[in-house]
């Protein structure tokens, strides 16, 4: 297939982006060898935020219940691991499958409503699952959490040890693969239709496209990604707590996404890293100061940078290059 100049340029830019993520990830590996467990959690949450971006940023469906998908993946992988399936790659696939099924269910329910009822449905679903996971303590461990997993070495070679080196590198590899696939998905005609549905649903339906199956498909993809994130957290920490399927996780994911910038896959990553790094530092000092800070940051974003950090950076870059172009003329 002959490639146009612009297509090859975007592919080049994508490769550059992936290389940059890999570089930052490896830098984290070398710079913070004592905090790899935390960094692995960042990667798993980054997958969650990426999955939320697919729904919020590309489909325009506001959701405060993404934790349902994340938790489904975490519990599925955890339960499978306790019952003797220990291959980490297989566990990730199980988590992805559970997330996809949950995404299908959640999408089928949420897409029945619009606006506020839709938002409320997303909250109700995650709360319902939270209570169900708490109640079914014989399977999920209830409020004590699910423990006692011991994943087998990755590819039969790399042990999941106390330092979490293999877990981190495994997570980083997973993130790179998912990110590459999502770049492809969001740029495909299917991704464009989703974007169109966000911008102008009436016009898309006038083009003869029925919105429900398109959005449902995106929900399934999003569930897959979130489920992988949950499974990664389960493998890395070897504990699945009730908080993995909770409103707080879902709300935090939304805050991270908004901080980074909605509708930007890079924004999801930037937001996650900045939010979790800040939380790591400030919440250790005083958790309530952390809440005040998050609240103030949210208000500031809405007032001054509605497109998030990545959008604002983009705008700045565009302004700078335009100035230079003017000056050069």
């Amino acid at each position, binding site marked *: 297939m002959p490639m146009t100049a612009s297509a090859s340029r975007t592919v080049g830019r994508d490769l550059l982006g992936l290389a940059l993520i890999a570089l930052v990830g490896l830098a984290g590996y070398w710079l913070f060898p004592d905090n790899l467990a935390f960094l692995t959690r960042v990667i798993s949450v980054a997958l969650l935020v990426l999955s939320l971006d697919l729904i*919020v940023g590309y489909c325009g469906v*506001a959701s*405060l219940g993404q934790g349902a998908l994340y938790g489904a993946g975490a519990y599925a992988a955890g339960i499978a691991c306790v019952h003797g399936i220990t291959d980490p790659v297989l566990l990730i696939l199980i988590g992805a499958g559970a997330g996809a099924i949950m995404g299908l269910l959640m999408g089928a*329910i949420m897409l*029945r*409503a*619009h*606006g*506020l*009822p839709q*938002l*409320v*449905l997303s*909250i*109700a*679903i995650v*709360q*319902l699952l939270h*209570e*169900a996971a*708490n*109640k079914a303590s014989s399977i999920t461990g209830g409020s004590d959490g699910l423990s006692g997993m011991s994943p087998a070495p990755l590819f039969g070679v790399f042990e999941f040890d106390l330092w979490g080196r293999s877990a981190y590198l495994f997570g980083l590899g997973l993130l790179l693969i998912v990110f590459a696939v999502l770049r492809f998905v969001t740029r495909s005609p299917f991704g464009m239709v989703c974007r169109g549905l966000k911008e102008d649903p009436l016009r898309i339906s006038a083009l003869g496209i029925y919105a429900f199956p398109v959005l449902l498909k995106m929900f399934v993809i999003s569930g897959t990604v979130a489920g992988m994130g949950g499974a990664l957290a389960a493998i890395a920490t070897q504990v699945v707590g009730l908080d993995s399927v909770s*409103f707080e996780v879902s*709300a935090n994911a*939304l*805050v991270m996404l*908004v901080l980074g910038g*909605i509708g930007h896959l890079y924004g999801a990553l930037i937001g996650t890293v900045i939010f979790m790094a800040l939380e790591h530092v400030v919440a250790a000092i005083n958790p*309530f*100061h*952390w*809440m*005040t*800070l*998050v*609240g*103030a*940051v*949210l*208000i500031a*974003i*809405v*007032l001054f940078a*509605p497109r998030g950090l990545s959008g604002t950076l983009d705008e700045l870059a565009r302004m700078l290059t335009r100035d230079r172009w003017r000056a050069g003329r």
Partner: protein
Amino acid sequence: MQTVFSIGVDALAYGMVLFVISIGLSVTMGLMRVVNLAHGAFAMIGGYIASYAARDLGLAYAVAVMLAVFGTILIAIPVERLLYRRVYGQPELTQVLMTIGITFCVIGIANYVFGPTLKTIPTPESLRAPVSLGFRTVSAHRLFVIACGAAVALGLWYFIERTAFGVKLRASVDNAAMAAALGVKTEVVYAVSFAVAVGLAAFGGVVGAELLPIEPYYALRYMVTFLVVVSVGGAGSIPGALAACLLLGAIDVTARYLVPDFGNFFFYLAVILVVCVFPRGLMGRAQ
């Protein structure tokens, strides 16, 4: 029989507390189309002010309630002017973020000022004694809460259906641009209804403090409940909100009595079912 009766009284009292707090949210949401997640924060502020006035300053309960209502309105006015004004007419996501941000700030500040402990609001003697109904005795406080809920419902009904301001309010809800063109000062209507909504939230927070205890996470813990009630009832509809509060209150309290280890499971199950069957809420208007 005793159980059925006490479930009934508790469910009614709980439903009424939910109603008093969330009716203001319902009205502002129907009127200004703002998804206000910070509504619970105002109820919490009311509770804190009342607790401070009644417990630390030793004022009478009625005075504490008045102080709480007006104090909360005073606090809410600059918030509305500076923050809410910016998100009227914006997409829901923006409103959700702004109001979650406000909620988080209020939680952090409340904890900094009042500490993380539970705050009680001492009730007068007359509310503490049990009342005999002839065949059963009930806690006077429960009856007081139910009476407050009924009074608020009736008062609001009169205010909206029978006064000149109510006519303007309904006109602005139906079509703000047309109402403005006909000479209704929609800005004033918005401001007054926001103040009334916040005042009612504070009132409900104080009156219901025994059922929904006042602590810094109050705003976050019940935020979802209030939002759910409004959505189930249909934004902007008083009978809808009343029906939703009584229905969900009854389901929640009954489930807590009979199957306590399920927690909120049946509450949220009912919410999902109702929203799926009535996507606009029980009595929401078609758009």
